[in-house]
């Protein structure tokens, strides 16, 4: 039996212990890295955030979300359908069961209002995700021995980079399903193991390893026969890059259903391209009418666009608070993922519910001047496309170094509302909206767009750039030198973060942390707020 060290017992600061128990350890004294099991990233025990926040996390996040997930499954199709899908699709079974760990990683270290506001964003994403995969299963011929039911006939398949808003005119009768959003995009964030199967699959039939891994994975889903068969036709787009265009050919081959390509112009600043782009949308609508026999519904389009405009207006309010105050209660990862998900997918009731809740929290923070990130040392803007397998790096960076990610490039896409008073104007706005999609708004149409970084740095009062360096993105790789030149000329602290979008094997999370650590110690000469987070092995974690 271990002897009790009386001296140690005497030295115990009971008051401090009590304070830590009630309020949680203050940032600066925390040792979050010590909570992890080696390699797996599992927790020896979850973080004690003080009585109030721990119980909030347990009741209102952990328990609530488990219950709501079951509720969502019941609501959107039932447990039998869910079980069938789970048994059939790797991306569902392997990915979505550990979803609460995705919460944990993104919300680590958060307290008070930030914990609440950020968690609501996560809840909304989970709800839409469940809704989407249940919609897929409802229509899926693969789960019905190849038979096509009514739901199959009432679904529209589209590439995930086609904005869901173009399908609003049929929203009352037809379900639009972004093909890869759930099987690929969201999976990478929740459990990065799954996507590696798809990348390997497409390479196994002869694709070289260097094209964009996102497009590789999107094509690999078909190679591994892991895509539901849930619609009679599909709509594709040239967004975001050459790889998306090229991988469409693979998808077309394996899907073998009627296809409409709705490319957007590359030189979107040119006023001459707008009409062309608008005509493409009109042609798409004609194609859908031909395929479905259902007429275009202008009233429905208007109604949905107006709802979506509401979301955009609230997003602007959020940006205003983030840019001009210290009271923004949403952390970097919640901001980035929610915004890209909501703006790309399109209208869903949960976005409005969430925005209402977040508005309350944000207004409270502003009114009561609650700074949710009090140990912010640097206000960071994250630019270019993020590592999907480590989207929660910003949570780590704040906890470890006080690097607070205020805004990111993808959030700033789709930066507009859409006029709804006249169809012609609406279509022109929709054309513009589509041109401003993620990895488009700043990435093509002239280099000056990618350099909008400087004005956004100023607008959001950021003093540091986290420059994502997607090693297989030809567009971004083709501009690295000019960024280097500009960073030097403008004397901006920028950390290049190499990664390969969904593929953690190229640059591991530990390597990303090492690069940030090196910059912070050698260039910034700062001390970590939580040294236990400097170096740990999470190589096998989700």
């Amino acid at each position, binding site marked *: 039996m271990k002897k009790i060290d009386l001296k140690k017992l005497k030295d115990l600061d009971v008051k401090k212990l009590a304070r830590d128990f009630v309020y949680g350890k203050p940032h600066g004294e925390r040792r979050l890295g010590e909570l992890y099991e080696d390699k*797996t990233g*599992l*927790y*020896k*025990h*979850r973080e004690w955030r003080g009585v109030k926040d721990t119980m909030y996390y*347990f009741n209102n996040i*952990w*328990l609530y979300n488990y219950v709501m997930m079951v509720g969502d499954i019941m609501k959107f199709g039932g447990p039998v359908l869910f079980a069938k899908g789970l*048994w059939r699709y*790797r991306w569902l*079974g*392997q990915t979505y*069961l*550990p979803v*609460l*760990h995705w919460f*944990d990683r993104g919300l680590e270290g958060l307290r008070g209002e930030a914990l609440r506001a950020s968690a609501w964003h996560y809840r909304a994403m989970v709800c839409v995700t469940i809704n989407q995969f249940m919609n897929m299963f409802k229509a899926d011929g693969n789960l019905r021995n190849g038979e096509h039911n009514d739901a199959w006939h009432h679904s529209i398949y589209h590439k995930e980079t086609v904005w869901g808003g173009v399908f609003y005119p049929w929203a009352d009768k037809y379900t639009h399903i972004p093909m890869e959003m759930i099987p690929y995009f969201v999976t990478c964030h929740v459990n990065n*193991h799954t996507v590696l199967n798809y990348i390997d699959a497409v390479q196994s*039939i002869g694709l070289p390893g260097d094209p964009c891994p996102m497009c590789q994975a999107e094509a690999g889903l*078909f*190679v*591994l*026969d*892991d895509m539901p068969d849930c619609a009679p036709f599909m709509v594709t787009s040239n967004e975001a890059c050459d790889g998306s265009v090229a991988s469409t050919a693979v998808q077309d*081959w*394996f899907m*073998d259903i*009627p296809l409409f390509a709705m490319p957007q112009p590359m030189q979107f600043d040119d006023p001459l391209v707008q009409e062309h782009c608008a005509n493409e949308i009109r042609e798409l609508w004609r194609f859908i009418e031909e395929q479905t026999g259902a007429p275009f519904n202008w009233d429905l389009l208007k109604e949905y666009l107006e709802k979506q405009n509401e979301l955009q207006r609230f997003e602007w309010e959020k940006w205003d608070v983030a840019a001009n105050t210290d009271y923004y209660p949403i952390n970097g990862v919640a901001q980035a993922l929610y915004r890209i998900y909501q703006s790309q997918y399109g209208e869903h009731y949960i976005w409005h519910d969430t925005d209402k809740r977040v508005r309350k929290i944000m207004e409270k923070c502003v009114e009561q001047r609650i700074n949710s990130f009090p140990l912010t040392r640097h206000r960071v803007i994250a630019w270019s496309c993020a590592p999907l397998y480590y989207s929660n790096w910003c949570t780590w960076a704040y906890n470890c170094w006080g690097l607070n990610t205020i805004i990111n490039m993808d959030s700033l896409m789709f930066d507009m509302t859409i006029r709804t008073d006249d169809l012609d104007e609406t279509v022109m706005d929709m054309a513009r909206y589509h041109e401003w999609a993620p990895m488009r708004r700043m990435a093509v149409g002239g280099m000056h767009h990618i350099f909008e970084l400087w004005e956004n740095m100023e607008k959001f009062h950021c003093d540091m750039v986290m420059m994502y360096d997607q090693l297989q993105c030809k567009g971004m790789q083709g501009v690295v030198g000019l960024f280097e030149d500009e960073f030097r000329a403008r004397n901006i602290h920028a950390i290049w973060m190499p990664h390969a979008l969904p593929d953690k094997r190229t640059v591991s999370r530990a390597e990303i942390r090492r690069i940030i650590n090196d910059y912070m110690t050698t260039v910034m000469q700062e001390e970590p707020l939580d040294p236990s987070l400097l170096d740990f092995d999470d190589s096998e974690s*989700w």
Partner: protein
Amino acid sequence: MKFFKILWKVLLIGAAVYAALFAVFYFDLDGKLLFRKVEPWLVKHYDKMERRDPLSVGYNIEKK
């Protein structure tokens, strides 16, 4: 009196369940179960699943 006894029992069971769930939460038992048991089991299932060979899909060049 009986009602209060039942209520008490329900409360006790409720509290026990709640405490157990808290233990699951706090010690990340859900994560450990999913990581060590459920995921490997499911991966095995997916790995050995029979799948359609995509390369057997025809490529009709006249198709529009």
